[in-house]
């Protein structure tokens, strides 16, 4: 190789290298997925909740959704049907018959659980979802392509989609009032709750509080904090006076929500070794079979 061509070669490689580096800094290979020690959470005490649905009203107001006046939420007939969070309400309250040692019905507020190991963050094709340092699971609407894989992945069936919009349909779910908590405010639902059924705090403290409540009032609660271990733990956790399966909570194991799908994915692509080896293997077979064919032909001639 002459000096000139070597210099050209180096120049080209440097250019290609710079290009690759520039490209990879422009793209983000993985979404933010932080599991901070000090992540926040909410403890929902369903034995305290009275089903006033003020949280629904506050949530709609905080998210620019049509809320109506707060008096209209006093109508309790709506509690007769079981509802799910959707594009018009990011949180809903459902009512169930009374549990052990209680006269009043059980009211359960439903919203995104903000998992510690969120399936949506793992699944999203463009990495639009992220688990933030304060425990919130939010998503970047500008990235979303509307594939709805987050909905298929979510173990709690939470994300909703605007099916009836032709342009710019959005994924909608509880964002733990990320914009409010950033400014030091409480989440809208927590701040309005008149009976303090919702406790906002550092998740590890909330677990201690919940354990303490169960220990001091064993006749009031079932000995289970839903969300402490389910799908690897969630930021929102629940206390109740009846079995959680009777309150329509899904039966979930303690392994993280993404399950084995991430291990499979990372196994197939471990440093690109498996695909590259397969490529080399096929190349080898191609070369050998061609070579053998030629020898056969030469012998036949």
């Amino acid at each position, binding site marked *: 190789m002459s000096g000139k061509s070597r210099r050209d070669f180096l120049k080209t490689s440097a250019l290609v290298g710079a290009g690759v580096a520039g490209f990879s800094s422009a793209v983000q290979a993985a979404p933010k997925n932080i599991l901070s020690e000090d992540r926040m959470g909410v403890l929902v005490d369903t034995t305290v909740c009275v089903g006033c649905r003020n949280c629904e009203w506050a949530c709609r107001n905080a998210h620019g959704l049509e809320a109506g006046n707060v008096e209209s939420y006093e109508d309790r007939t709506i509690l007769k049907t079981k509802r799910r969070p959707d594009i018009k309400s990011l949180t809903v309250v459902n009512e169930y018959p009374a549990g052990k040692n209680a006269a009043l019905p059980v009211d359960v507020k439903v919203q995104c659980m903000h998992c510690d190991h969120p399936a949506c963050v793992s699944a999203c*094709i*463009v990495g639009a979802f992220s688990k933030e340092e304060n425990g919130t699971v939010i998503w970047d609407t500008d990235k979303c392509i509307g594939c709805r894989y987050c909905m298929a992945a979510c173990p709690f069936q939470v994300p909703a989609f605007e099916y*009836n919009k032709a342009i710019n*349909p959005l994924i909608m779910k509880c964002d733990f009032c990320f914009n409010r908590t950033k400014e030091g405010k409480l989440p809208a639902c927590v701040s309005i709750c008149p009976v303090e059924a919702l406790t906002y705090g550092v998740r590890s403290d909330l677990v201690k509080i919940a354990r303490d409540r169960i220990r001091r009032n064993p006749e009031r609660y079932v000995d289970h904090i839903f969300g402490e271990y389910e799908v690897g733990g969630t930021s929102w956790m629940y206390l109740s006076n009846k079995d959680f399966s009777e309150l329509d909570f899904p039966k979930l194991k303690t392994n993280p929500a993404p399950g084995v799908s991430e291990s499979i*994915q990372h196994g197939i*692509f471990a440093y690109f070794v498996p695909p590259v080896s397969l490529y080399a293997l096929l190349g080898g077979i*191609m*070369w050998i079979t061609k070579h053998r064919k030629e020898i056969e032909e030469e012998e036949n001639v």
Partner: protein
Amino acid sequence: MSHENVNPVPLQRKYFTPGVIVLVIIALNGLVFLMGRFFFGLGAVTNLNNQYPWGLWIGVDVAAGVALAAGGFTTAALGHVMHREEYHAIVRPALLTAMLGYTFVAMGVFVDIGRWYFIWHPLIMWNGSSALFEVGICVMIYMTVLYIEFLPVVAERFIGKVHLPGFLSGLNKVVDKILRLIDTGLAKTMFIFIIAGVVLSTLHQSSLGTLMVIAGPKMHPLWQTPILPLLFLLSAISVGFPMVIFESLIASRSLGLKPEMHILSKLGSMIAPLLGVYLAFKLGDMFIRETFVYLKEVNTESVMFTIELLFGVIIPLRMFLSPKVLKSPLFLFIASALVVFGVLLNRINNFVVAYTPPYSTQSYFPSFGEISVTIGFAAILILVYRFIVLNFPVISLPGEQTAQPTKYTIKGAKK
């Protein structure tokens, strides 16, 4: 070496027949509903909702579409990687169906995603832990590879025959030169693309199975297993040749050609072992996870699973073991069609039937609009296929050799 089997020519046929007109009507009907989807949103045309985010379009147009296009990489592996030249006559038709198949998979994705104008986002916004991201990227690259693999056919059709209309005729020589350049350039480098095509296919065929693993308990245990990616890969490999036989027999019937039984029978004899391996893993998985208990109760899931396994795998497996079946065009067609049906049903089962959301108030069944779009796409695919085989050298006729069949060889092997 004889190449009497390889003689691809544009077929001399009239484009429009009564059957073609029926297909045009089906295609137009699909396009009408497609317009509804783009003007009024997904909710206006589909039965999808927050409980069932994925339906027929993902199950059939995308998942089954990718699986049924597996004929492309399986025949490429057989014909080019293993150098089994006796199969070269079927490589081009299989390549064409794979190329069209993937094009329609991409179109299926395009219409199903809510924000179709952001379909390019995965190119620059990456998520390495997402199976869907891997499927998306692999499908995009593989589709490009398929188009590159098809370029020599286009070059062969037009080299020496470039007649541009009107003022463009001045460019005739330049275009001809470019085509020749592409042809010689690709002849030397094609092995790179062929191997890449096989590697990319194994990657995304399996990752398509990983997709539903994350749905965890939302998926019926008869299908939910950590070896889903392996099952998807094995079923894709075993449906490759049946799909080629299925298409070849339909094409020769509709184009009035003699079925290429001498190739198809040999191809058919390789299917039983492939299906056998798939069946072994499928049954093994069922016994290890003890999911056969779910077959005792009669419901949609258990019935669909039984149909899938019995008619889609076991019966055709037995048929392909019989020499009589391999020699008869009719039985070969039935056996191949059963495998195709089995894999189609398997993908529908995995993505639609097995999916049971925890808070489901009604079950999902595709709307008339969804079905119209799906069969409309299938009709357009057949129409484009017919147009291409009538105008490009894809299907081989017995006779004088016109194409150089073994030009895609690895560098280093002496000519």
